[in-house]
C-alpha cells in the first residue's frame, strides 16, 4: 500500500492488524432457530483489540444473529465464542438500529443506564456521563427528554450511552440505517473520532458498502441461506480518516472490491 511508506508512529496495514492482541474469537459457530432455520453456519472470526470490523451482507444473512450471539442474548447451537480478555461489567455495549432510549428518562439518565445496572451512583460517574455527552456533542441537552430530540440526536444519545463505560467492545447493528444521508455521513465521521478517543473495538453491522469502507479496517462479507462468512476484505487506509478519504481513488477502489464481494454474496444467497 502506498500509504504504508508514510512516516507514522504505529505500523499500519495488514501486518499491524495481525499483530494486535486478540479480544474475542468465534470458532465454528452455528446458530439454528427452530428445526431448520440455519441463521449462521460455521462462523469463524478473530476480533482483535482496536479493530473496526464491518459485517456486510444482504438482509437475512445472520448479521444481527452474530451480534446477538456475541452479546450473549442468544447461545450458539454449535461452536464457541470466547473472550480472550477479561470481560467485566461495562466491557460490552450495544447500539441498535432504533436509538432505544427510555422515553421517561432524561438524556443524562439514559446515558447513566449502564452504570446504574452496575449499582453505581450517578454522582460517582457524572463526569463520565458529561464526557460521553460532550463526545457526541450533546452536553447542552443533558436534561432533555428523548421526544424533544431529532432522530440523529437520539442516535447520538444511544452512542453516548454505549461509550460511557469505555467498553472494550461495542456492537452496532445498522445504527444509521434509518437516518438521512447527510446525518449518516456526519455520524460516520463523528463515530470514527469517538472510537479513536475511547480506543475501543467496534463490530458494525451494515448493508451499505460505502459505510463499511469508510468506517472499517476489516470488512466481513456474509451471504444468506445459510448465513455464513464468504470473504474478508481489509481497508488499509490509516485512521484518522476524513472527508477527503470519501473522495479519494483508494476509497473508490475499495468500494468496488466490496461491491463485487457483496454482489457475489447476493448470488450465493439466491
Amino acid at each position: 500500500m502506498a500509504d504504508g511508506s508514510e512516516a507514522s508512529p504505529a505500523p499500519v496495514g495488514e501486518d499491524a492488524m495481525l499483530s494486535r492482541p486478540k479480544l474475542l474469537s468465534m470458532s465454528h459457530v452455528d446458530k439454528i432457530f427452530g428445526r431448520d432455520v440455519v441463521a449462521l453456519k460455521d462462523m469463524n472470526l478473530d476480533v482483535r483489540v482496536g479493530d473496526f470490523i464491518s459485517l456486510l451482507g444482504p438482509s437475512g444473512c445472520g448479521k444481527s444473529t452474530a451480534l446477538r450471539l456475541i452479546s450473549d442474548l442468544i447461545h450458539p447451537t454449535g461452536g464457541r465464542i470466547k473472550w480472550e480478555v477479561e470481560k467485566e461489567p461495562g466491557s460490552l455495549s450495544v447500539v441498535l438500529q432504533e436509538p432505544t432510549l427510555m422515553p421517561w428518562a432524561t438524556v443524562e439518565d439514559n446515558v447513566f443506564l449502564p452504570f446504574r445496572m452496575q449499582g453505581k451512583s450517578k454522582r460517582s460517574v457524572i463526569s463520565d456521563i458529561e464526557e460521553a455527552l460532550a463526545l457526541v456533542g450533546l452536553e447542552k441537552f443533558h436534561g432533555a427528554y428523548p421526544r424533544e430530540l431529532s432522530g440523529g440526536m437520539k442516535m447520538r444519545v444511544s452512542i453516548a450511552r454505549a461509550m460511557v463505560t469505555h467498553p472494550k467492545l461495542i456492537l452496532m447493528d445498522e445504527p444509521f440505517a434509518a437516518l438521512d444521508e447527510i446525518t449518516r455521513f456526519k455520524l460516520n465521521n463523528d463515530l470514527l473520532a469517538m472510537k479513536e478517543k475511547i480506543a475501543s473495538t467496534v463490530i458494525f453491522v451494515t448493508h451499505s458498502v460505502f459505510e463499511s469502507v469508510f468506517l472499517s479496517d476489516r470488512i466481513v462479507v456474509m451471504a444468506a441461506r445459510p448465513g455464513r462468512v464468504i470473504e474478508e476484505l481489509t481497508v488499509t487506509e490509516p485512521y484518522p480518516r476524513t472527508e477527503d478519504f470519501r473522495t479519494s481513488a483508494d476509497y473508490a477502489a475499495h468500494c468496488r472490491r466490496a461491491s463485487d464481494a457483496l454482489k457475489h454474496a447476493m448470488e450465493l444467497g439466491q
Partner: protein
Amino acid sequence: MTAIEQDAPATADLAVDPEELARARRNRNEKIGQWVLPALVVIVTIFVWDRIVAVNELPHYILPGPGLVVEALIEDWGMLSDSLLVTLRITMGALFIAIVGGVGLAVLFTQSRWVEMSFFPYAVILQVTPIVAIAPLIFIYVDNRMVGLLICAWIVAFFPILSNTTLGLNSADHNLRDLFKVYGATRWQKLRYLQLPSALPYFLGGLRIAGGLSLIGAVVAEYVAGTGGNASGLAFRILEASYRLNIPRMFAALLLIALTGVIIFAILSLVSHLSLRKWHESALKRET
C-alpha cells in the same frame, strides 16, 4: 433601518398563515366550548325541570323542584355530609387497597408465568361475578361492617388496575429489554427501571377507571349491607329517604354521589396528566 421598521407590521401581517389563524381560533373556541357548553346544558336542564314541576304542579313526593333539592341539601347538610364522609372513606380505602393489591399482584404475575397462569382466571371470575351476588355472603362471614364494605368495593375496583398494570409490565420495549440484559440488569433492576416506568401509563388508565368503580362498589355494597346505624354512607341515606318518601333528600344525596364521582375522575385525570406530561404521547399537545 427606519424604513424596515415601518414596513415590519405589514410584512408581519402577511407572514401570518390564514390556516394558522383559523386553527388558533378553532382551538380557542374549542377550549371555551369545553366549559361553556356543559354549563349551558345544566342551566337549561335545571330551568326546564323547574318549569315542568311548577306548570304541572307536581307534588314534591313525585318530583321535587330544584329549589327543594337545594333546600334539602342545606337543611340536611349535617347528616348528609357525615354520610358523604363515610362513603368517601370507603371509596378511598377501597381504591387504596385496589392500587396496592392490583399493582402487587401484577408484579407477582410478571415475575412468574406460573403464578399468572394459576391465579389470573380467578381474578377474572371475581371481576365478572356481579358484586350484588357476592356481597351478601361477604356480610355473613365478615362481622365488621366497614371491612365488609371495603372488601366489596375493592373487588369491584381492583381488576382494571390489575389487568392494565399486568399488560403494561409486559409491554416494555423488546430492544430495551435486550439492552438491560446486555448491561447485566438484575430482576429487580429490570422491574424498577424498565417495567414499572413502561407500565405507568397503563396503570394510570386503570386507575381512572378504578376510581369511579370504587365509588360504585362503595354505594352498591351499602345497598346490599342494608341497615347501617349512625355510620351510614350516602347509599343508606337514599334508601332511608325512599322509605320515608323524602324525595328531595334522595335527590340531594344522589347529587352528592354524582359530584363525588366527577371530582374523583377529575383528580385522577390530573394526576395522570402531571405524571406523564414530560414524556408520554397521551399527554403531549400536538398540532392536528
